């Protein structure tokens, strides 16, 4: 099993997910978060917390988003770990509305 962050996270980075994660598996860049599959325990605590439905369990991942499995694994390996809530990215609320949430 794998749990992944997908494109809806871009330009939002609400980090609600990080506040309930028991294992510090989220990593971040300027745009979004990524999950380290070797650390994530697939508890799904984060999945319902995401305000923009960016996080999926692999078994629920839409086909067109399957590339995000590789991206999460690759990006998380080299990015800093996110240890707590972060500031919203500028325009996050507008972006959320745009996405229909």
């Amino acid at each position: 099993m794998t749990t992944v962050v997908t494109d809806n996270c871009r330009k939002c980075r609400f980090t609600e997910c990080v506040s309930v994660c028991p294992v510090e598996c989220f990593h971040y860049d300027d745009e979004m978060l990524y999950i380290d599959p070797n650390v994530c325990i697939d508890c799904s605590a984060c999945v319902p917390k995401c305000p923009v439905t960016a996080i999926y369990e692999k078994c629920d991942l839409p086909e067109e988003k399957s590339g995000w499995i590789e991206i999460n694994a690759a990006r998380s390996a080299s990015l800093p770990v996110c240890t707590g809530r972060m500031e919203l990215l500028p325009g996050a609320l507008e972006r959320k509305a745009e996405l229909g949430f």
Partner: protein
Amino acid sequence: MSAIEVQEKRAVCCACHQQCGLVVRTRANRIIDISGDKQHPNSAGFACLKGTRAHELLDHPDRIHHPLKRRGRRGGGEWQQISWEQALDEIAASVRKLTDSHGAEALAYSFGTFHGADWGIGERFMNLFGSPNTVAQDKVCYGPGALGEMLTYGFGPSFFTFPIPGKTRCVVLWGFRPSASMPLLWRQILWAKNAGARLIVVDPERVKEVHQADLWLQPLPGTDTAVALGLIHAIIRESRHDAAFVESHTIGFGELSEHVSSFTPEQVESLTSVPSSKLVQAAHLLTEQSPAIIHAGNGLCQSGRGAVQTGRAMACLIAITGNLGVEGGHALTGPPRDLLANGDAIASSALPPAQRNKRLGAERFAVLGAGYADLDEAVSRAWYGRKHLMNWLSSAHEPTLWRAIVDQQPYPVKALVLQHHNPVGASANAGLAAAALAHPNLELLVAQDLFLNAASSLADYVLPAAHWLEKPFLSMGLGLLGFAGDYVECKPAVLSPSHAHRGDYDFWRDLGRRLGQAGDWPETLEAFWDTCLAPASLDFATASSRLGPLFGPETRAGRGAASIQDTPRAEYGTPSGKIELRSSLMERWGESALPEYSRPFVVDASKDEFPLTLTTGGRKIEGFHQDAQLMPAFRRRNPMPLVSMHPETAREADIRDGEWVWLETPMGRVRQCARLTEDLHRRVIHADRWWYPERAGDTEDPFGWRTTNVNVCTDSAYESCDPVLGTWLLRGLPCRIVKDRDTATAGTKSERTA
């Protein structure tokens, strides 16, 4: 408040043993949603999908809503809906008739692991009724490890002790994947690691925890005792043990040193496949980084014959390294002092000794029979004079139950009550369990459950169980078991039971009232718990008003002159009052007094025919025991049973990833889907427990268990069981894998999409 208003309630999750705090929103006695409670002091907002999607099980369309009485043949699937009153009247009459003719012991009761706080409460009825035959899963669920500790230092398990970040300097995870089974503990271990603690993992599989480890040992399943004895040897050889602690607290050190002398790193490598250099490295890390906690998991409690000796070896390792009773090491909490937990709440002393001696398995397994009193007396001396503290691990022996039904040996068992327990899924040698449940010798089979499954569908009466969200909650450490000492947490039920669902307690109360126990069963579970809390000057309502548990002095009544704490007591609950590296009780029972290594044993197993080693039932976070099969969240992730193997092992058998293959042991064979992974040792196979709820109507193989459940291949022969406790053999069996030439490819597509 109007019934259609949204209500927000606090609850404690019963979807596994972790007991995370939940916030549940309801409307009109229905769940809207469930989330982790950020205010809860233990879980602090965390809840996994078993909790947040618990309503998927609660509201499952296949749930049983009304009492059912069998029509036609057993297992024929024809039912008549009846009232609870009729069911209870008829069951009571049948129990009376059968036990009048065959004795109280002809009634047995077997319950499944944690499914709400009243799990196992039927033992109270059984003790009052005079039947010693309450059957539980303790033999394969921490019993062997806990017994190993109790024999050594008079209480246990201490394996669950949470590390203290900044104090604990080394954590060992041994046959234990808390990332799946105890995520709150895993979170705490990671915090300790962030504060500098080192992590050693001992596991045949590269589990999640290995990615965080400083050192990983990969022994073959069933060889853990040899690894432990090798560590003890390496530590003593280099004088790395805690000599001062050993000198003042233990007896038998010299004999232990001599006993382990043959377990050199090289010898251990040949027995376990752990490289000698890694073993020595582990011995160094463990002793240089103290205090340490060794979390010996349930993976060590399911290998049959040597299970208790494995627990003893772990306890000796903990003791000689001075990690017992120190801050940041293993806490020796003992039972609660004043709370009426443990054996008292289930009226253990009401069972006459003559009846206790008839317990199924008593004549064969010491702790279930004559040895129980020895252990009880020893443990009691250290812990406030309380009796029956280890009652939970001396339940009747399930494999003996099946034989008592089928062969009527040592005597016939004619009536059986199952509560939330599906032995056809969970028991070793599932075929024997199924044969016993369907056998005409068993004249009454009652199953109270959420669902019809391969066991409950064979019953004469099926009773609709309440889901844990429909029941009040109480935890004294672990339900009634009390590992966490002075600790209690309570919460009222989130929902009132819908349809005709009733709790486990309600069944036994109403049966008890029909069979001479009218004065022993308060009307409600909360009122019963009031009687358990009263000695600590607490009651259910007061304890429920607290967010999180009460613990320590808050649960002690402070009874002045009568206070138990002032009574002189032994430091350790062993016959000598010392830590017994050499166990006097094991010796008294005719077993090796020093922790002895033996491989898992299967009668008639030829090494040539079965060259691989099988381990089974590794935990996944999305499921908890047999309930997992019914949970949509589990099945989305796990559509079919997987047998995992190393790619090299698969190549040798001409097996490709995703093909259906036969897994075979001397016991039998099942078909599962191959999963290739480099995370497993080349000589090790892992297979899932399995059955298909959606195949209830399959006439050839109802629920699909005969062809897919790995427990068709596990063993419960007496010769395979632990000689002290009776632990049966679920892990460490010899096995082989065979390509299914007929359906390997064809089956893949159709069954995957089924």
